């Protein structure tokens, strides 16, 4: 019995040794073993630099190429690859939270959670109520003075569909997200907590 076990083990080890020496076979086996099969219809989102929440609702990926293509018909400026998890209630103040992704720290640098720019593109015909404010732009200095620019702020959104451009500026670089946002009447928005 013991002899048979030793014979079996030695056969396995000899076989493994031959296999180990055969670099080509070994490379082939390991490459096959660790090959990650990902559905080609899905889009890879590994390179983005920040996460965002709008009124506490997470911004998530659009994993549907048809939806991306249909949004492109409305907005030809750029592709929309992000969406809000659920609709926002109409005519409520918009609050954005951003957080840098840890793995992208060396690319985008430090992030001031309040230094973001937001732009709204309604997908329907509507005139948005805008409020003009003067904002200091610390990145541009003319004659030793910081440039002051006009910025239009939209605090509330009426019912409808929008694409929201969210641009975040870090100490080293910047990044942007185009987000598909649905705004609905408060009664039609589920809010449990």
């Amino acid at each position, binding site marked *: 019995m013991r002899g048979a076990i030793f014979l079996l083990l030695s056969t396995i080890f000899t076989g493994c*040794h031959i296999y180990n020496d055969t670099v080509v076979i070994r490379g082939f086996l390991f490459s096959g073993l660790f090959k990650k099969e990902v559905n080609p219809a899905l889009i890879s989102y590994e390179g983005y630099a920040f996460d965002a929440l709008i009124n*506490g609702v*997470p911004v998530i990926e659009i994993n549907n190429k048809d939806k991306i293509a249909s949004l492109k018909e409305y907005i030809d400026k750029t592709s929309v690859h992000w969406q809000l*998890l659920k609709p926002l209630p109409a005519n409520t103040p918009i609050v954005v939270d951003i957080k840098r992704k840890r793995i992208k720290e060396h690319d985008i640098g430090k992030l001031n959670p309040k230094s973001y720019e937001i732009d709204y593109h309604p997908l329907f015909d509507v005139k948005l109520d805008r409020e003009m404010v003067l904002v200091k732009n610390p990145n541009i200095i003319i004659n030793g003075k910081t440039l002051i620019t006009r910025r239009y702020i939209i605090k509330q959104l009426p019912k409808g569909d929008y694409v929201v451009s969210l641009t975040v500026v870090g100490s080293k670089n910047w990044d942007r997200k185009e987000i598909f946002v649905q705004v609905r009447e408060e009664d039609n928005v*589920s809010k449990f907590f």
Partner: protein
Amino acid sequence: MFQNFFKFMISTILIIGCSQTPITNRVQIITTSKAQELKQGKNLYNKILKRVKLSQNKKAIEIINRVGQKLLKVINQEYDTSNYDWQFNIVDNKWVANAVCFPAGGVLIYSGLFPYIDNEDELAVVLGHEIAHALARHRVESKTNLSLSKVFEEITKIYLYMDKNSLAFQKEIDNKKAETLIKEWINLPHSRKQEYEADYIGLILSSKAGYNPKAYLSFWRKFAQESARKPEFASTHPTPKHRIEKMEEILRKILLDKFTNI
């Protein structure tokens, strides 16, 4: 001599370490005693509570405790959990969409999960799943599984070291390959099996407590929208898509049984 020792080891593990999961009745090997598990779980939970910021949202705390108590009522009808110290707390962190349950019954829900929950039925799905992990002693089972898989890992490393021609850096690479191999072939599939089991137990518990079992599907469909970033075999959790498929199958069977019994 070797054979006797081997038989002795196997029988010792089987006698001391065998237990059964509730509801699914799966036999599991656990080398940690129940008392030790509960003590460690309580200590760990108390440590974590000191480190995290707890939410003061009274409405949410009230809802979570209400749903949790309903589920516990169902559990206490069939199982003795008097040694457990069941607690439901909310961690104030909107960036984390997760929930955990420690072995002694301490449940933590992160506020980042709230946007995914739209009603009490969906909350019962989450709490049922987490309670199931504690009931089925998954954490200590994983610990035992990890120790056993370490043995296989060392054997694989010994074999890889036998190649005298390979260079030192190649050996390091081989070591890492052995670790990944064991992780992806033994540890991760086992972890995913536990997740499916917790889903099933959670579903049964929440249904018995009077919650709609179909909430499981609506909850995971929200998660499925942002999944598929990582292939399932490299993950501790099954993808939401697979969870939904499996649960649809179970729901169909449960509903069919219900109607045929009538």
